[in-house]
């Protein structure tokens, strides 16, 4: 659910990658590890995977190729919209894709995906039953999609800067931090950013105002817009990926963003050793959560290989290794004990039961509601 700017970056880095950083980060045609794996597949058995950028373990693909003799051609995207446009245009050429749940329902209705053959997915039993149930909202009967990772949209902040501005009583565990005009006005000087996503930010405002986060009532949406207009002067920018580096560099001090991304910012700040302490909190009022799922396009050519790959990703050690790297919790109950303790016990990554109950999912929106939200967001951002 990120942003087009990063796609552009990914594309351009892809061009640079040849000379500069061959198998790292955002490059578009990221590694093709299948090819790199020693004595990999006998020619012919290939699998085309389209996943989010920075969303897989370092050795996952090589291990899969070694085990299955299937060569993986791995591409990355960084926005659901881009993935969806490809799927809706037809003949995407991919065998496994990773959409997020609010987009899944409509894509299933449009006939984008084929039903999974569960007889080829013996590891299905490892999945988290509660998560599967939640996913049924988008995919009734769990026929099309396997949960991969999930996460929350909460608040990332620079611990020391917030303390300097708001003192010890700063409401770090509440949306009050950014939605109360007097709080955010004080934070303006050190920089506050929001995701550039009407469908994730307006529900947060609706929820904060006490309305249902999936409300489609015009007057309630209007109230959410008014809330954003009130705090707009104090917002440095709306962007869905830039905040990672800005938070890590100290250019901003608060970012409403994806849990895993904030943890990435934290890891980066620690790596650089600039002394900045970044933390993430899921506000106590509750927050939005999203699932990213594995699904097979209806026109996929390598269906058997796609099932083999999905089954591989449902192995507890495999998925636990990915979580250790990307800091998003996975949808695999059997894998939780294998996840690093520091991650497994971090309430920002694996929330407590009390918080879990307060999380809401982003709804599948009717086209006219989607349009109202997009329009409202333009008004919030540009004043037009």
């Amino acid at each position: 659910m990120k942003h087009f700017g990063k796609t552009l970056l990914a594309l351009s880095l892809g061009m640079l990658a040849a000379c500069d950083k061959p198998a790292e980060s955002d490059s578009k045609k990221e590694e093709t590890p299948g090819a790199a794996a020693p004595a990999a597949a006998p020619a012919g058995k290939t699998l085309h995977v389209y996943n989010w950028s920075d969303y897989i373990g370092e050795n996952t693909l090589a291990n899969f190729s070694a085990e299955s003799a299937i060569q993986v051609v791995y591409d990355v995207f960084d926005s659901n919209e881009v993935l969806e446009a490809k799927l809706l245009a037809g003949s995407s050429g991919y065998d496994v894709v990773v959409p997020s749940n609010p987009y899944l329902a409509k894509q299933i209705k449009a006939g984008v995906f084929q039903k999974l053959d569960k007889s080829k997915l013996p590891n299905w039993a490892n999945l988290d039953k509660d998560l599967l149930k939640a996913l049924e909202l988008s995919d009734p009967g769990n026929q099309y999609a396997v949960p991969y990772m999930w996460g929350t949209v909460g608040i990332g902040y620079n611990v020391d800067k917030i303390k300097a501005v708001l003192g010890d009583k700063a409401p770090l565990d509440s949306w009050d931090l950014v939605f109360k005009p007097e709080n955010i006005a004080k934070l303006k000087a050190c920089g506050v950013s929001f995701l550039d996503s009407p469908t994730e930010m307006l529900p947060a405002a609706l929820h904060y105002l006490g309305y249902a986060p999936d409300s489609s009532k015009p007057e309630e949406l209007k109230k959410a817009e008014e809330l954003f207009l009130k705090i707009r002067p104090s917002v440095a920018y709306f962007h869905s990926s830039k905040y990672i580096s800005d938070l890590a560099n100290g250019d901003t001090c608060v970012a409403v963003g994806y849990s895993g991304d904030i943890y990435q910012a934290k890891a980066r700040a620690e790596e650089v050793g600039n002394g900045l302490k970044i933390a993430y909190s899921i506000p106590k009022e509750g927050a939005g959560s999203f699932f990213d799922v594995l699904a097979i396009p209806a026109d996929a050519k390598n269906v058997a290989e796609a099932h083999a790959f999905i089954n591989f990703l449902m192995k507890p050690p495999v998925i636990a290794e990915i979580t250790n790297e990307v800091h998003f919790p996975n949808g695999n109950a059997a894998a939780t004990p294998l996840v690093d303790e520091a991650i497994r016990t971090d309430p920002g990554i694996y929330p407590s039961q009390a918080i879990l109950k307060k999380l809401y999912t982003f709804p599948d929106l009717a086209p006219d509601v989607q349009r109202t939200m997009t329009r409202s967001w333009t008004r919030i951002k540009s004043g037009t």
Partner: protein
Amino acid sequence: MKRLRHLFPGRQLVVGIPFVWLLLFFLLPFAIVLKISFSEAAVAIPPYTEIFTYVDQQLKILANLNNYVFLGQDELYLSAYLGSLKIATVGTLFCLLIGYPMAYAIARASKEMQTVCLLLIMMPTWTAILIRVYAWMGILGNNGLLNSVLQGLGLIDEPLRILNTDLAVYIGVVYSYLPFMVLPLYANLVKHDPSLLEAAADLGAHPLASFWRITVPLSKNGIVAGCMLVFIPVVGEFVIPELLGGPQTLMIGKVLWQEFFNNRDWPVAAALAVVMLAILLVPIILLNRNQAKELEGRL
């Protein structure tokens, strides 16, 4: 003439190539976009309804004009078109102000220098535009090169906020499209006969007066061509406002992206594109007229 044509039938073939090109790469895609603009959004692959139905030997066309009506109902689209036109106009003007002296100087330089200069003008375009725009993000940012240098020199205390403003978009536009202004101007200016200026000088004209009254009118076609080459693509520009502009930079390219990706409303996006093309047709027709006149003048 007629006999010559019969002797070389290949000639028609050669003339035909640009027409085939136009048909394949302009008219056909345009027809598809036009068709989509008359359909309705739907949950399907592709995500819009068919406008042609053929049942019982009856071909029915269901053209839905709502998308165009809709564009007129929300001031967003008008402001976006106006925003694009404003940025394109101002950007073109600055390209002309900077590009004209450059082209003039190159045209007056020695033959060897001309080759070197033209190469230098074209060289940046060998790098992908995306990377060059990204470089500007690095230069204009709050902690960017420009602000670091200015602060280092003690000229400013606070970093100048340039990135994510309209100013950054203008800088990006002028930088990216300058070669398209310089090249046609140079091609025009280099053909000027220097004896005209000498004659003017002999008759007592001030160099400025002869520049204004001889060079500028003679280079009119170069100016028009350069301005069109800059203006037309800038109106539809998406990458530069997306990367360098701020939330208040409203341009049609960005709105089109929103319709297509955020609202998944391909029909409205297509209608927006058709209207944009209609707006662009005006300067294109003007350019064509101008060229036709020039050809007539030569004959």
